[in-house]
């Protein structure tokens, strides 16, 4: 059920009791939510919006204060992105909070590239924390962009842009324009389908070439199935060493590559003191987002030098060999 009536049903007048029509609909929508949906809320999840896009099925549900974005109707409890409507800053998911720990290695990014918008949690937070930064989020699905704006408080500005494009095309064009980023976040993989051309040695190399000397690459990836090993070896092949941060109680893992543009041997060693000092400095900035940056810093330090916990003989994924979706189900 869509709250905004389809175009064909909208009245032809442009104003409604002197109000611009958009505000009139917003008021009407707000009225409908409070009057019609509130009784249902108590019983459980309420579907706020349902839409079939070219790429997925989009479902926005709300349960109490938690509004979530789902990309599948079958497993309706696996959400992409959730927002606490009473505290929109609070990051509901562990993986989003973990992704923010990339800031430990570059605490003032000027140029940020994010692949995959979802509910817009990451670009929204980063724009609030670094209002001066130029953020470009690449999202292939225009319907997702609409939903993020309509239901998840995402506002596009000149410095916080969404580009509706395939990320591979965007990365190649950005390289031609000689763009460079201090922070690249790859978050294009939802639980059900992986864009396979965004998980290859070649794509990661393209991303690597877009990083500044102090640039950090952060990727939200898989922690289970055969894919974990293949993917880890793909990152290893491109970046050499990387930080393999696994969630304490979630199935996610975050790959972090500090100074990703240079070879692993040339990177500055990570000291516990510097990491904790950086966490202390970031702590007040990240507190409103419920990012436990100090404990994340400690978790990250523990991973350094840890032996690979995956089969290092599995083939790295390339443009020539990229059956990521098949490997995920193996």
């Amino acid at each position, binding site marked *: 059920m869509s709250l905004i009536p389809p175009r064909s049903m909208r009245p032809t007048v442009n104003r409604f009791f002197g109000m611009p029509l958009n505000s009139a609909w917003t008021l009407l929508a707000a009225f409908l939510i409070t009057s019609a949906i509130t009784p249902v809320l108590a019983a459980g999840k309420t579907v706020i919006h349902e839409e079939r896009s070219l790429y997925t099925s989009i479902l926005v549900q709300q349960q109490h204060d938690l509004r979530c974005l789902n990309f599948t109707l079958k497993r309706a409890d696996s959400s992409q992105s959730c927002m606490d409507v009473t505290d929109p800053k609070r990051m509901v998911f562990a993986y989003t909070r973990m992704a923010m720990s990339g800031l430990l290695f570059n605490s003032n990014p000027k140029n940020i590239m994010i692949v995959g918008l979802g509910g817009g949690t990451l670009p929204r937070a980063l724009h609030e924390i670094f209002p001066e930064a130029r953020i470009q989020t690449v999202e292939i699905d225009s319907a997702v962009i609409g939903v993020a704006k309509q239901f998840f408080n995402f506002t596009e500005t000149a410095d916080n842009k969404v580009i509706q494009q*395939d990320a*591979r*095309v965007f990365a190649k064009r950005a390289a*031609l324009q000689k763009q460079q980023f201090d922070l690249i976040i790859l978050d294009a993989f939802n639980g059900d389908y992986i864009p396979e051309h965004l998980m290859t040695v070649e794509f990661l190399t393209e991303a690597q070439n877009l990083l500044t000397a102090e640039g950090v690459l952060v990727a939200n990836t898989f922690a289970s199935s055969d894919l974990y090993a293949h993917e880890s070896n793909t990152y290893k092949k491109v970046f050499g060493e990387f930080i393999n941060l696994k969630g304490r109680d979630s199935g996610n893992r975050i790959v972090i590559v500090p100074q990703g543009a240079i070879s692993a041997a040339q990177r500055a060693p990570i000291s516990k003191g510097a990491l904790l000092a950086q966490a202390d400095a970031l702590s007040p900035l990240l507190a409103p987002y419920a990012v436990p940056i100090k404990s994340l810093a400690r978790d990250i330090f523990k991973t350094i030098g840890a032996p690979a916990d995956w089969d290092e003989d599995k083939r790295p994924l390339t*443009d*020539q*060999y990229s059956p990521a979706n098949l490997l995920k189900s193996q």
Partner: protein
Amino acid sequence: MISAIHLLAFCGGFIIMSFELLGGRILAPYFGSGVYVWGSIITIFMLSLAIGYLLGGRLSVKNPSPRKFAGIFAVSAIFLYPMILYAQPVMEFIFLHIEDPRYGSLTAAAFLFMVPTIILGMISPYSVRLLVDNVEESGKVAGALYFTSTLGSAIGTLVTSFYLVLWFEVDTIITILTLILLSIGLMAWFVAPDQLATSRDSAADPAPGV
């Protein structure tokens, strides 16, 4: 002879769809994997097959022979294989000159997939010509050939997307497809008679005993 031509038509169908499926893999690094990329690929394959049917039909009019039929396979192999070598530079060039990935992918698909697919498209009408004995049976013969070649296409799609991409690199699969085309083409060339049997040549003559 009948079953040999059906087998060849089956392989033709298999290879066309296997190739089409790999097309998505080949274009993705430059043009993404959006729905428009598949739109470009399917458009070019359909267009190429349409042209191939036309040309194959024309070719079958003058002195049809099983040898020429075998030749189609060998020629398609010769045009299929080099794609491995020139796909990257061609896509690079198109990417630099066409900004919109929809038209970029359409142009790239045309340059990379069109010629081999046109030649592969010639197989179906030519095999109909080789198997049709008389007008009454022509529909039945064509139907049976559509059946085998489309069955080949279905199996080619399935095997490629379920297994081949899991086992091999894209270029390896293209090499395998080329080798299949080349070997069945050569085998058919040496086994096949140079001309159609005379009884097949005179479809208008009454069959013996009638």
